[in-house]
Each structure stands twice: as structure tokens, then as C-alpha cells.
């Protein structure tokens, strides 16, 4: 195999390694702690979805939370025991936020769930392997915790090189070193699986030259692999941060990952060596990721070492195992001194990405509380492995010029901390960059949300406009329909009088149709009047306070009736004048309806009078204050009845003899039925009779003048009228006499 040409990256630093302390003893296994706190979100992406409840019994390796979404990983019980709760607990995260955690009370039996690996794993379908990896909850073991199943699902992209990151450049951390020394074969087999999955032609394992034992162990393991493997162990010079993904790729291949791109863009996939070993265990043995090797080191622990620790083990147990003695200003750091973060308490659990717990003394790693002004010395620029301008980024982040920071490629910063390490003013530069990155991301999210809100607002506006338009259209359609209907009505009304040839130009109301209409209106008004009267009566009995209102209504109706009656009279006159303008005498003859109508009218008027009288009587009995009004009403009604009677009688008198002959008989019949008619009525009748006689006389005269042949008939009628007049006169006299007696 041809030797690999090594490249270099700009910048980088050489901090004190401090790795020897923890590599003196083999990997120990931590006793099962009494309680495990397993966060459901230990990886980048969506937290897993819990499958268990408090009280559930779980076995070692049992899935307790399933991946939710594509970028997610399953969570398994690290040992057998009982779920004591699934609740929000503080997470081992720089934010110190709460997250869902399954708390397991261990039973100490460490009883495995039934599990099985894939035997001929290098021959099966890739998808089966990916599913197995996803099921086993494998995430990147280097620190970021990206789900491995997602990273190896390269899809259509052609991957030519798999790079295994075993550089472990950060000071103090030796977890990968110890893993390679003791479990090199697991790692090599895992690499083979990853090569198959990514379809890489060759694999480069980058190990820093400060780990000669690990390099030797890996090479020995490689010799044990049968057949061609295309795996090369490459020793690289020790320099921080050669273990950065982009930096390692540059060292091994000379290629640079494009800004904001991923290694797969240039045909490379990079995996941590610990991840490779975990993949092997999951695929070949069926063991999910439930434990990991973690370095416990720092001067505050007496026995710095690497331990195989169950995920979820509280840091406290780990520290006790390594004989930790808290000193003054004791800090606990998860991760290394360069990129790790301070833990807020020792109750926090170890997670899948925890490669180191650092417990330094205050003297060993003094807290940096004394940042001074930037003197623009440029040392950070020289140290930056990503070829950025840290001091510029610092100024931009400090003054919130986020746009400029973005233009200066702040997102290419790997937050390695080399700039902060070299800064003579001890400015916490990386914290500024982290802040700026977060603020930019927040701005982007806000912009995206604003865009979404805008679209939603516009859509809503469009919907409201559409609805309003629909309503308007409906309203218009309705209005049009109504207009049309009205027009049709008008047209019909206009056509009807046209068809009736009796239409009179000076008095259009005189047409028989109009007359009828008026008559109908009158009838309706009269019934309304009656009803109102009934209501008044009712109200008088039940609700006296409403009486006034009803009375007002009645007065109105009465006015209406009056005006209608007037109209009718006018119409009738016109109608009478029309057909026979020459002879006024034959009017009634010419209009056969007239006497009958008038009779009806008289009768209804009579009936109304009677009701009015009855009401008056009632009112008088009850002593109501409406008596006056009712009385005037009765009087008016009386007058109306008389008018109607007069009109009728005059009409019937002027008609043919038969009618006139019939009338007295009727009247004669009336007399015995009403013998006690008061004198007034009789007098009125008398007067009416006199009128009639006079009228008949007039007619006779007229007929005589015109020489008509009706004179004889009229004369006969006159005689009869005279007879009746005499009769009435006698009646009046008799009545007067009886009254006087």
C-alpha cells in the first residue's frame, strides 16, 4: 500500500496534554449505581418518545424510548430495574434546561433482555444494518451526538473515503485511546460495517502520534482481519484541534470541506472510533448503546482512569469511584478543558456523548474571570484552525453586528477554543461566537416565522375578501330578483287597467278593479279596527297600562277606515258619473253592484255600532276613563251607520219597483222586531224617508221634463214612499206620545 501523504491545517495550538494520568490502569467497570437518570434527548434532533411509565419493570437493553422523526435515536435501559418516574430533570447541557428523563431504580441483577446480532453482517442488505443501528440508538461518541443511522444513510452520494477519527486531540481525554488499546478488534470490525454502509473504497484511521500503544493495537487488530480491508492506520502529528472533523479531513486528504457544507459533499464520511466499536456491538452482538468509556480525570480525583459507565449514571457515582475530593472553587467539567462545559451539579447523568469528566483543582485550571480589552495582537488569527478572523468576529459579536459576523463566516467556527487559549487578554472569545451564532439562528427563525405569518395573514385577507365578495354577490342577486319581481308586478298592474276599457282618465281610481281593491282595503281596515277594539277590551281587563297604546292604534285604524271610505265614495261617484254622464238619475240602475254593496256596508256599520255600544256599556259598567272616547266613537259610528243606511236606501229606492216594493216589506218586518226603537231613530228614519220622497219627486220631475216612460213607475214609487212617510210620521207621533206618557 502506498504511503499516505499528510497535509497540514493552518493554526492550531499545543496545550499541555495531561493524558498520561488516566492511561495507567486498564478500563474499569463501574458498579451498577442505585439509580440511573436517562435523558430521552441525548442526541442532536428530536428527543425520543417514551415507551415506559413509572412502575414498569425494564430489562437491560430494553428500548424505553423510540426515535421520533428521522433525526432521532432510540434510548434503552442500561440495566434491569424499575422505572421510578419519567419526568423533567435538569440535563447535562450548557443551558442547564430541563428535559424528559426516565429514572430507573436498578435491581442489581443486570438481567439482559433477549437480544440477537446479525451473524453474517457483511453480507446482508444495507437497510437492515441501518435499521439495526437506528434501533440500537447509536449516536456519535465524539461529543456532538449526531444519530449514526442518519450519517451513514448517504443515499445517492458517492463516498470514496471513510475517515475514522481517533485523533483525540483534546487534553486530558483518553477514552478513545484506551478503547483502541483494549478493544481494537471491535473498532476494526465496526469500521468494516461502516465501510460497507457508506460504500467507501478505503478507510483512513487518523491517530495522533502521542498514542503509540493505540496505534500498535490497531495495527495488530488489522492483521487479524482476513482478506482485503482497505483500512489504513495513519499516524498524524499531535496538534490541537487535529481531531476536528474538517481539520482531520484536511490532514489526511488535503481536501477542504466547503464552507457551511458537510464532508459528504466531497465524498467523505467521518466517524469516531468509539462509534465504530458501538456499531459493531450493536450489529454483531445486538447490544444497544447503553454504556460507554469515559475518562475521569483531573487533580481533584485520586485515581484518574477510564471507566466503562452505564448511560444515566450520576456524575457523583463516577467521582466517588475515582476517589474524588472536592477542593476550593471546585469545578466539574463535562468534556475536555477546551470544549467542555461546567456542570451545575454532580447529580447530572453521563450521556452517550460524555467522553470525559474533568475535576480540576482551582490551581490546575483557574477560572477565567478577568477578560481585558482586545489589543488587536492577532494571535487568535494565527491560532484559528478554520482560517477565520477571530478578533473581527469578536468585535462584531460584541456590538451585535450580526450581519457582518455572518459575512465573516462565523458559522465556519468550530468553537475549538484555540483563540481563547492564546488570547493574552483572556477574552472568552468562543462564548462571543456561540452567542452570535445563536442570535443569528434566532433571527433566521424569526424571519422565517415572519414570512410564514405574512403568508398566513395574506391568505386570511384573501379569504375574507372572497367571502365578502360572495356575500355581496348574493346580496346583489337577491336585490335584482326582488327588483324584477316588483317590475313584473308593476307591469301586470299596468296591463290590467289597460285591458279594462272602462278606465277613466280624470279619475283612474274609478275603475271597478280599483274600487274593489279599495273595498277590500276597507274591509281589512275594519277587521283590524275590530281586533284592536277586542284587544282594548282585553287590555282593560288584564293590562290597563297598555290600553292607551291600543287606543292610539285604534284611532289610527279608524282614520284609515275613514279615508278609505272617502276614497270609495269618491271612486263610486266617479264610476257613477262615468258610464252615464248624461243622466244622473239612472246612476244606480247603471251600477247593479251599488245597492247590494251599500247594503252590506250598512250592515257592517250596524254591526260595528252594536259592538261599539256594547263596549261603551262595558266601559260604563266598569267605570273606566275611556268611556268618553268610546262614546264619541259610538256616536261617530252611529253617524256612519246612518250614512250607510241612507246611501243604501236611496240606492234601493231609485232602483226598480220590485226592489222598492221589497224594501218597505222588510222595513215593515223590522218594526215589530224593534218596537221600542227610540224616537230619535224614528225621527231619523222619518227624515230619511222625507229625503227619499223629495228625491223621488225630483226624479219624477226630471222624467217628466225629458218625457221618459218611467214617469208612471216613478209615480207609483212615489205614492208608496208617501205612504211609508205617513206611516213613519204616525210612528214618531206614537212614540212621542208614549214617551210623554
Amino acid at each position, binding site marked *: 500500500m502506498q504511503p499516505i501523504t499528510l497535509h497540514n491545517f493552518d493554526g492550531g495550538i499545543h496545550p499541555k496534554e495531561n493524558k498520561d494520568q488516566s492511561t495507567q490502569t486498564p478500563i474499569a467497570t463501574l458498579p451498577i449505581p442505585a439509580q440511573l437518570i436517562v435523558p430521552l*434527548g441525548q442526541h442532536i434532533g428530536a428527543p425520543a418518545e417514551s415507551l415506559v411509565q413509572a412502575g414498569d419493570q425494564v430489562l437491560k437493553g430494553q428500548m424505553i424510548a423510540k426515535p421520533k422523526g428521522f433525526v432521532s435515536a432510540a434510548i434503552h435501559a442500561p440495566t434491569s430495574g424499575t422505572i421510578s418516574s419519567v419526568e423533567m430533570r435538569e*440535563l447535562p*447541557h*450548557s*443551558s442547564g*434546561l430541563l*428535559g424528559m428523563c426516565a429514572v430507573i431504580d436498578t435491581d442489581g441483577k443486570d438481567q439482559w433482555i433477549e437480544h440477537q446480532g446479525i451473524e453474517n453482517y457483511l453480507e446482508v442488505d444495507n437497510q437492515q444494518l441501518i435499521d439495526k443501528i437506528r434501533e440500537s440508538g447509536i449516536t456519535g461518541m465524539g461529543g456532538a451526538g449526531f444519530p449514526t443511522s442518519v450519517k451513514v444513510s448517504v443515499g445517492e452520494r458517492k463516498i470514496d473515503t471513510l475517515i475514522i477519527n481517533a485523533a483525540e486531540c483534546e487534553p486530558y481525554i483518553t477514552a478513545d485511546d484506551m478503547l483502541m488499546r483494549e478493544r481494537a478488534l471491535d473498532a476494526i470490525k465496526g469500521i468494516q460495517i461502516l465501510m460497507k454502509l457508506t460504500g467507501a473504497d478505503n478507510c483512513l484511521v487518523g491517530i495522533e502520534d502521542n498514542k503509540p500503544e493505540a496505534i500498535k493495537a490497531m495495527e495488530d487488530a488489522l492483521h487479524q482481519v482476513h482478506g482485503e480491508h482497505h483500512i489504513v492506520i495513519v499516524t498524524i502529528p499531535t496538534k490541537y484541534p487535529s481531531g476536528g472533523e474538517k481539520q482531520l479531513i484536511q490532514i489526511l486528504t488535503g481536501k477542504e470541506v466547503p464552507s457551511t457544507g458537510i464532508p459528504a459533499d466531497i465524498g467523505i464520511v467521518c466517524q469516531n472510533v468509539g462509534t465504530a466499536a458501538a456499531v459493531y456491538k450493536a450489529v454483531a452482538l445486538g447490544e444497544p448503546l447503553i454504556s460507554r468509556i469515559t475518562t475521569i480525570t483531573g487533580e481533584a480525583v485520586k485515581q484518574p482512569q477510564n471507566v466503562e459507565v452505564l448511560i444515566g449514571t450520576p456524575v457523583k457515582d463516577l467521582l466517588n469511584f475515582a476517589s474524588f475530593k*472536592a477542593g*476550593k*472553587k*471546585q*469545578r*466539574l467539567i463535562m468534556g475536555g478543558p477546551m470544549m467542555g462545559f461546567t456542570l451545575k451539579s454532580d447529580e447530572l447523568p453521563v450521556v452517550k456523548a460524555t467522553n470525559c469528566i474533568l475535576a480540576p483543582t*482551582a490551581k490546575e485550571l483557574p*477560572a477565567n*474571570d*478577568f*477578560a*481585558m*480589552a482586545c489589543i488587536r495582537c492577532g494571535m487568535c488569527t494565527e491560532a484559528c484552525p478554520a482560517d477565520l478572523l477571530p478578533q473581527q468576529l469578536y468585535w462584531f*459579536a*460584541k456590538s*451585535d453586528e450580526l450581519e457582518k459576523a455572518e459575512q465573516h463566516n462565523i458559522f465556519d467556527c468550530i468553537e475549538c477554543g484555540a483563540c481563547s487559549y492564546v488570547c493574552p487578554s483572556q*477574552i*472568552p472569545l468562543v*462564548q*462571543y461566537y*456561540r*452567542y452570535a*451564532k*445563536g*442570535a443569528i*439562528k*434566532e433571527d433566521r*427563525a*424569526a424571519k422565517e*416565522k*415572519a*414570512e*410564514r*405569518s*405574512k403568508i*398566513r*395573514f*395574506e*391568505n*386570511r*385577507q384573501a379569504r375574507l375578501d372572497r367571502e365578502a365578495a360572495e356575500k355581496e354577490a348574493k346580496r346583489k342577486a337577491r336585490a335584482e330578483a326582488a327588483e324584477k319581481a316588483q317590475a313584473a308586478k308593476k307591469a301586470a298592474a299596468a296591463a290590467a287597467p289597460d285591458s279594462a276599457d272602462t278606465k277613466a282618465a280624470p279619475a283612474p281610481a274609478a275603475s271597478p278593479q280599483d274600487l274593489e281593491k279599495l273595498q277590500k282595503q276597507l274591509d281589512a281596515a275594519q277587521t283590524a279596527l275590530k281586533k284592536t277594539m277586542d284587544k282594548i277590551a282585553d287590555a282593560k281587563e288584564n293590562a290597563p297600562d297598555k290600553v292607551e297604546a291600543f287606543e292610539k292604534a285604534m284611532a289610527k285604524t279608524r282614520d284609515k277606515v275613514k279615508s278609505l271610505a272617502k276614497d270609495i265614495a269618491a271612486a263610486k261617484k266617479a264610476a257613477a258619473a262615468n258610464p252615464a254622464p248624461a243622466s244622473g238619475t239612472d246612476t244606480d240602475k247603471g251600477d247593479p253592484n251599488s245597492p247590494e254593496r251599500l247594503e252590506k256596508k250598512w250592515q257592517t256599520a250596524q254591526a260595528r255600532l252594536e259592538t261599539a255600544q256594547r263596549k261603551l256599556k262595558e266601559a260604563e259598567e266598569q267605570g273606566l276613563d275611556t268611556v268618553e272616547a268610546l262614546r264619541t266613537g259610538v256616536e261617530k259610528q252611529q253617524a256612519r251607520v246612518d250614512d250607510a243606511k241612507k246611501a243604501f236606501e236611496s240606492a234601493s229606492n231609485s232602483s226598480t219597483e220590485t226592489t222598492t216594493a221589497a224594501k218597505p216589506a222588510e222595513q215593515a218586518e223590522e218594526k215589530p222586531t224593534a218596537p221600542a226603537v227610540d224616537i230619535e231613530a224614528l225621527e231619523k228614519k222619518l227624515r230619511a224617508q222625507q229625503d227619499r220622497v223629495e228625491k223621488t219627486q225630483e226624479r219624477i220631475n226630471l222624467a217628466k221634463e225629458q218625457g221618459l216612460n218611467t214617469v208612471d213607475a216613478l209615480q207609483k214609487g212615489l205614492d208608496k214612499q208617501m205612504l211609508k212617510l205617513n206611516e213613519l210620521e204616525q210612528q214618531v207621533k206614537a212614540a212621542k206620545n208614549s214617551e210623554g206618557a
Partner: protein
Amino acid sequence: MSSILIAVIALAGLSILFGALLGYAAIRFKVEGNPIVDQIDALLPQTQCGQCSYPGCKPYAEAIADGEKINKCPPGGEGTIQALADLLGVEPEPLDAEHGAARDVPTVALIREDECIGCTKCIQACPIDAILGAAKQMHTVIASECTGCDLCVEPCPVDCIDMVPVETTLQTWHWEQPQGPAENLIATDRQPAVGGV
């Protein structure tokens, strides 16, 4: 004489030619709408809250393009005023207090669901349709879409809508800007650190 004539004809010809070209370009490359309105609208926070007294961000953007003041957007705060001032080349003004104060923390509406009577009044008030529900059914706010504009709070007849601060999740959390009063000290001013575990 003829040389003058030639010059006049040549210039007239050129002016006709370029006139035609410009006229064509004016039609062919006509800009629809007022582009400045869209640029202003892009700077506004799109909460559609109506605190500027316009019925949404776009109408306010149109008003600004017509000369309205740029300091009437409380949700946008100083940042939006600065951005608008930069865009329009005017002096930034302090936020007009008449239209409300800028919010310190972003909020979202939250319906206390067991108290909701299902009157749909808040649904009609929401400018971005971020409340789900139907008549006589419980309503709920789509928290990811809510802009925290407060417009649903007023119409609720049973006062079951609260404005709650947006909760920080692991996905939205980010580091604070380092605050160090000691940053301007020189080395000799160093004070011993306080605190620690």
C-alpha cells in the same frame, strides 16, 4: 447649409431612435407595484398586531412608503426602526410610546382550555388564523404560529386567554452575550473571583 441640415436630421433621427428605445423599455421592464413597499414590509416583524393603527404590517409598509413615521411598531422595537431608517435614509426616532412599548420577551397566547366556551370570537380576531376551533368546541392556539399580537385577548368573553412568555427549549436556547464589567480592567485591577462550587 446642407451640413446644418444633415446635423439636424442626424440628431432628430437619433432622438427618435432613443425615444423609441426608452419607450419600449418603459413598457417591457415595467415594475409592478411599489418595490419600496415590499422592502419595508420585509423589515417589519409581521406580527399583524395592528398596534401601529394600520390593519396589518403591509398596510403600515404602504403608509411608510407614503411618508408615515417609522417609529410606530412596538413589536419590532428599536431594531426595526434602525433598519427602516437605514433603508429609507432618514433619521431613526425613538419608539412612539403612544402605540405601546416594545416587549422584553416574546409571548404567545395560551387558552385555558377548560374555561373556553367555544364562542369563536378569538378565532375571528386572530390576524393569522393561528387559533383552531369551532362553535361550541374548545379552541386552541397553534403556538408555533402565534405572533403574540394580543388581539385575541380582548374579545374573549370569559377571559380565558393568557399571554405567556415563549418557553426556551434545547432547540431555541443559545448562549448569552458574555457580560463582564471587568472587561475594561487592566491586569493590575484584577480582583479575586467570587463564587465557585
